[in-house]
């Protein structure tokens, strides 16, 4: 097929032209906004991820231009590639919204309700998903499965109780590092992430499994219970690192760097993986070159009490006299 062939797809009635072989999820991400299906297991930086959590279910109301029959069941948008003339319904289809609500309920079956304790709270994908799509109560009547906490190395803690088995960390360990160090043991309800006899992962990039984890199953032991994420202030910084790109976000509380993470995009996926030296060992401001405060979506709880300078209203932008009158206000570097 020629390279310049573009498929016309419409998602929730919004047309977009994408290259053949693109998945529905990525086509939706090219449009952006509310119509992007949520994804718990799919991770654009990890090959082969996706297809496990079923939160990205969409309805295909028209298969393609040549075969306009709708697909018989809801499909996982992260694994289904687009066809020319395909019509996809995401948030406009009540069937999809209902199915997603069910998926969230099933993901939460075994997930403990310990958000007040969990370090991931505030940047947890499952929390967002539960808030948006889930119902307030569960119909599950049985004991939730529990596990003992496991230390993976001395810097990472695995709390299997919170795991939703998205396999992202397994793919990270497979692809970022050169030997397979941990995987999923057991089947069905008994399956769990493990490192074979709790063998410590000693790889330069093992810390990235903390960032890819959508829930609080894998957490940073150096940040454990230090503070809540919404009380810390994210600042972009970089350093000349021999092993990785060195582009990170520092999470400050006052003068102190509490945590170092990779920079995450709007979908909560890291832009570039960082090495363990940057993540765990460089926790002083002198180690870093500060790029500036990180912009946080105002829908996120992390933006609470983080003040950004107000943009002047359009009426001031147009009028020179008003600009002159508000000069002192506009040029001030700090908000009072």
């Amino acid at each position, binding site marked *: 097929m020629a390279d310049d062939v573009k498929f016309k797809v419409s998602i929730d009635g919004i047309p977009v032209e994408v290259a053949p072989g693109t998945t529905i999820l990525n086509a939706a991400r090219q449009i952006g906004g509310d119509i992007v299906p949520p994804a718990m297991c799919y991770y654009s930086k990890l090959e082969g991820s996706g297809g496990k959590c079923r939160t990205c279910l969409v309805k295909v109301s028209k298969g393609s231009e040549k075969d306009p029959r709708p697909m018989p069941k809801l499909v996982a948008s992260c694994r289904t590639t687009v066809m020319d003339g395909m019509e996809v319904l995401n948030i406009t289809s009540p069937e999809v919204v209902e199915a997603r609500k069910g998926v969230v309920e099933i993901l939460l079956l075994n997930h403990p309700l*310990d*958000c*007040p*304790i969990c370090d991931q*709270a505030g940047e947890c994908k499952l929390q967002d998903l539960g808030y948006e799509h889930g119902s307030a109560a569960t119909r599950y009547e049985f004991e939730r499965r529990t596990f003992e906490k496991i230390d993976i190395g001395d810097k990472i803690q695995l709390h299997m109780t919170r795991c939703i088995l998205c396999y992202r960390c397994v793919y990270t360990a497979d692809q970022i590092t050169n030997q397979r160090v941990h995987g999923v043991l057991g089947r069905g309800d008994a399956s769990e992430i493990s490192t074979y006899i709790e063998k410590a992962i000693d790889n330069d990039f093992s810390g990235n499994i903390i960032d890819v984890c959508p829930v609080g199953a894998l957490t940073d032991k150096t940040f*454990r*219970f*230090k*503070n*809540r994420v*919404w*009380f810390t202030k994210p600042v972009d910084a970089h350093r000349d690192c021999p092993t990785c790109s060195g582009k990170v976000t520092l999470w400050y509380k006052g003068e102190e760097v509490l945590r170092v993470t990779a920079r995450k995009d709007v979908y909560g996926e890291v832009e570039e993986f960082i090495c363990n030296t940057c993540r765990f060992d460089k926790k002083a401001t002198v180690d870093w070159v500060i790029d500036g405060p990180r912009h946080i979506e105002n829908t996120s*709880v992390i933006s*609470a*009490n983080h003040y950004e300078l107000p943009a002047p209203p359009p009426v001031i932008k147009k009028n020179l006299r008003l600009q002159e009158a508000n000069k002192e206000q506009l040029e001030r570097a700090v908000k009072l």
Partner: protein
Amino acid sequence: MQSLSNRKKVLEQKPLNFWERIYLPAVFKGLTITLRHFFKRIPTIKYPEQKRPYSKNFRGQHSLKRDEQGRERCTACGLCALSCPAEAITMISAERKKGEEILYREEKYAAVYEINMLRCIFCGLCEEACPKEAIYLDGPHVQPEYLRKDFIYGKDKLVEPKFEIND
């Protein structure tokens, strides 16, 4: 100028007559009013010895609650501090050690929990935000102090004393 409402009254200043000039009737009239009040019911109450009945949803000083086994309920999740519009609450969390299960309910607890009573506006949002039912504004009025620093209440003043449950 003519008034807009047409209700303006012009007060006339007349010269005082004889009785008004000696002032005595007016003085006695005033004294009788004062005297009459000696025999009426006294509306003043002697706070703090005597207290008026409070409304059931009166919000006073905070208290950090314990559960039925006497363990502290607070898990230092920070939602009270997040919801606080006056930013009066701060806390430092710590991990529960082995053997401290009788002291703290959850695996994380507030090692330091401070409320600045001068900042607090007693709106009760912390109470509403708390997922663990750990904070309630069920105390009395905050006691007056001489120094501003004494209004920053720590866990020594906030955590309720241990109690026995008698069924």
